[in-house]
């Protein structure tokens, strides 16, 4: 792959204005597929199914098979449209998008074309520093996913050079909603960051609605990023027409979206500055090299010969259905964030830290389970995040919010010191049970039996007569040595403050 020339990002922004647009595909986690009764691999329960085990005749395009619209997918799509602030069409139609490709059983994709189910909305997006953008939404439409090709025998795993290809039709017919934005102006040097924040906002919305597993690494959420740039107009001049755009596909993490947008701005700027022109094309993002490359154009990509799908009736949801789904919408993520921040009384930086770490749900659930907000934040952002980073896993996967709240309650009750609590957490993460069970099993509770403490103190004092003399002389700080010995004898399971009190008491006798 030839290496593209890139212009320095700041210089590119000085000379050109970036304009963005996104197409995000969301795989819905319905029970069954968009047009068949086959189980849906995009539902958590069916993840990782063996190839070609989740297929019905229509997914294979078998002769005589017919599609039937999944009503749950329609409800999910309406909910998503409403959460995107869209109008819901009183009647919308499916069309056939005709093209030959072996992963497409019927050799046409059923997709909404000129009549999407949802249109004209907006999404509030928040950058890491809390800056807000309104992203205008053009439409959200329903369609079906295609199957998956695995190219065998070639060195690269790509179709070029492959000896043969295997097709898995499990994914064929998975319900998708494609969310298309209008052109996004004004992002300027924050364009790459905004791209990632937009995808995160969509992810938060679909997770909040519970309509998608939303795992980018599994392809539940996929983003195509459209980027164009245009020369900046001099003061008083009209804006230049929009530049030619490229569409970067295959971007499957938020960080990649950010990098891909940055790359395209720099690449396009270098071309324009050198007097070249941008080719309108699909480009592929390469995670390993951090670059984009031109996609191989499909043989008949120019003309999909769309026409209304004659096997399906228009989707005409009743006003009652739309309104009941509207009434059931969860709080929008942006609104929720503002509410939680206020209710928890966090400083901007502390709250944003939780948001950026993706631990808002966990902290909220921990607070709901009885922990003080500050304590909940402390556990998730420090100890749990530390372990998660060390092990390279999701913090949320390590421990339940209920366990964290229970742990904090043991601390609040004086049963555990902070240090002991961290050991208990370690046990909980290791799967040894609830915090209380770990405390019991490991015998980690603070020893609050004064008798046991006094015995240990008397022993320590007897062993260190010089220290005892100093304490009696009023040199109270000398007690530290005895306290240390006692804590060691108690294997840390004592409240140091209480030990200190008792040491002074016994020394005085």
């Amino acid at each position: 792959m030839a290496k593209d020339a890139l212009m320095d990002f700041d210089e590119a922004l000085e000379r050109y204005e970036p304009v963005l647009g996104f197409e995000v595909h969301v795989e819905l986690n319905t029970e069954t597929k968009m047009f068949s009764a086959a189980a849906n691999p995009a539902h958590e329960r069916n993840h990782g199914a063996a190839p070609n085990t989740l297929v019905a005749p229509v997914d294979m395009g078998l002769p005589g098979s017919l599609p039937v619209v999944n009503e749950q997918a329609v409800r999910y799509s309406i909910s998503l449209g409403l959460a995107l602030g869209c109008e819901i069409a009183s009647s919308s139609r499916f069309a056939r998008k005709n093209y030959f490709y072996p992963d497409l059983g019927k050799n046409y994709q059923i997709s909404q074309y000129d009549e999407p189910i949802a249109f004209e909305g907006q999404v509030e997006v928040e950058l890491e520093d809390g800056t807000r953008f309104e992203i205008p939404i053009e439409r959200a439409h329903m369609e079906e996913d295609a199957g998956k090709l695995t190219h065998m025998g070639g060195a690269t795993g790509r179709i070029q050079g492959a000896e043969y290809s295997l097709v898995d039709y499990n994914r064929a017919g998975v319900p998708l909603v494609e969310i298309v934005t209008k052109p996004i102006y004004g992002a300027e040097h924050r364009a790459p960051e905004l791209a990632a924040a937009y995808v995160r906002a969509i992810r938060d919305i679909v997770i909040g609605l519970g309509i998608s597993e939303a795992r980018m690494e599994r392809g539940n959420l996929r983003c195509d990023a459209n980027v164009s740039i245009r020369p900046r107009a001099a003061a008083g001049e009209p804006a230049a027409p929009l530049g030619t755009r490229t569409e970067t596909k295959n971007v499957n993490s938020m960080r990649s979206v950010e990098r891909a947008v940055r790359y395209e701005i720099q690449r396009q700027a270098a071309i324009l500055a050198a007097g070249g022109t941008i080719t309108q094309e699909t480009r592929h993002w390469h995670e390993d090299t951090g670059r984009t490359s031109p996609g191989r154009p499909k043989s008949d990509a120019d003309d999909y010969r769309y026409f209304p799908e004659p096997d399906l009736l228009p989707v005409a949801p009743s006003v009652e259905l739309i309104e009941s789904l509207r009434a059931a919408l969860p709080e929008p993520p942006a609104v929720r964030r503002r509410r939680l921040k206020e209710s928890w009384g966090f400083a901007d930086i502390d709250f944003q830290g939780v948001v950026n770490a993706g631990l808002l749900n966990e902290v909220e659930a921990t607070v709901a389970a009885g922990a003080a907000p500050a304590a909940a934040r402390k556990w998730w952002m420090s100890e749990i995040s530390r372990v998660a980073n060390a092990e390279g896993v999701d913090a949320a996967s390590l421990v339940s919010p209920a366990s964290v709240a229970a742990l904090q309650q043991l601390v609040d009750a004086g049963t555990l010191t902070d240090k002991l609590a961290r050991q208990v957490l370690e046990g909980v993460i290791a799967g040894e049970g609830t915090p209380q069970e770990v405390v019991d099993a490991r015998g980690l509770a603070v020893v609050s039996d004064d008798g046991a403490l006094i015995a240990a103190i008397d022993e320590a004092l007897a062993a260190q007569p010089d220290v005892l003399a100093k304490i009696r002389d009023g040199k109270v700080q000398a007690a530290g040595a005895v306290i240390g010995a006692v804590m060691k004898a108690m294997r840390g399971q004592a409240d140091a403050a209480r030990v200190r009190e008792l040491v002074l008491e016994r020394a005085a006798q």
Partner: protein
Amino acid sequence: MSDITRLTAADLAARLAAGELSSVEATRAHLERIAAVDGDVHAFLHVSDHALDVAADIDRRRAAGEQLGALAGVPLAIKDVLVTTDMPSTSGSKILEGFISPYDATVVARSRAAGLVPLGKTNMDEFAMGSSTEYSAYGPTHNPWDLERIPGGSGGGSAAAVAAFEAPLALGSDTGGSIRQPAHVTGTVGMKPTYGAVSRYGAIALASSLDQVGPVSRTVLDSALLHDVIGGHDPNDATSLEDPWPSFAAAAREGATGEVLKGLKVGVIRELPDTGFQPGVAASFRASLALLEAHGAEIVEISAPHFEYGVAAYYLILPAEASSNLAKFDSVRFGLRVDVPGGTVEDVMARSREVGFGDEVKRRIILGTYALSAGYYDAYYGSAQKVRTLIQRDFDDAFAQVDVIATPSAPTTAFRLGEKVDDPIQMYLNDVTTIPVNLAGVPGISIPSGLAEEDGLPVGIQFVAPARHDARLYRVGAALEALLVDEWGGPLLDRAPRLGGNL
């Protein structure tokens, strides 16, 4: 010929129910008839090797006292466009040679559940594209009235099977006349139900917005009995109507009394002058109208000004939908695969389609692909859909004045094999009166109306009713049928030449 094969399905069913005849006997008689005459007729592409087992099972169940459906034990021929799990389904194409479906078409499943005994799969024009079965990849079917003539199409196999007494009943499919035009040229009955009245699930799609499965038989009552079995809502077909339906058999029996004709308003289309039809076809049509009038019906001239654009609109809508429906035959998952050494998957797809599809199929795929192309869509597909709407309005206006519309079922009697095979336009024009019915989604039935004087070949009359009024067609059809059979002194098919030598 055995008497059993001359029985109507209704009579056969009555004898089966009365224990006078077993399903095994009935099935064996038809299999023997197929063995005797199908070498000449070629109505079947495949004959079931286990029909007798199925029949024996029905007999056992009947003997055990099980309550069985009205047609239980009656043999049935199935057009090859309908997929079956126990016999190949080719839709008359090489590209599906030997293809066995993993599931049964809904109408097949319902027929099996009702105890009908599938005899085999019947010949058809490839993917139901044609009016003569000459476009079948497996050779043409011959008209039992004259083996040198076409049996109509695309469902010539089903019509010929019934006309040659190889089966009392058959399933067909009708996209522009493929049930009714073969009925017309073979002296049989064929019904195209209201669009959505019978499930399309498992019918290999030609043009989805026009296709409709329906019954083929020798009498109106037999078609009604089969329609009762196969009709009704199917959740696997999104265009299937959820309406409750009356008993069509009851409608046919009621119609046979002739009461329905009193005051019945029968519309005749002004824009279809007799001059467009073979004299014997026009004469037979006029005679049927006179008979209806004599028994109390009122003949009303109506206008359907857009009928004449029907064929043109149809030959844009059908190829457009077909070009998309036939894209799935790409050799990747099933069907014929022609390998191209060193070629890409696109090369293999292209080569397989080139070898697997016949000329007429290719012609229509090219036509449809063109009609849907960017820049042409509005002029072709878009305009055709507008014509379709206008034809629907013509029907709406007409049915505000009349109860049914009558037309000749086709312009000519059976033409000779080879006569039109190289002239697609002439072939297409054969469906001039049946096509508007599909475009409007309304039901139409063809029943025998007599023989043309000039060639002695059968002629049919078509009745058309408003959508969802299929029962009316069985009433009116049975009424006219009763009058005609009375006039003829027996079924029209009694006048067909005897086939199969000494049988």
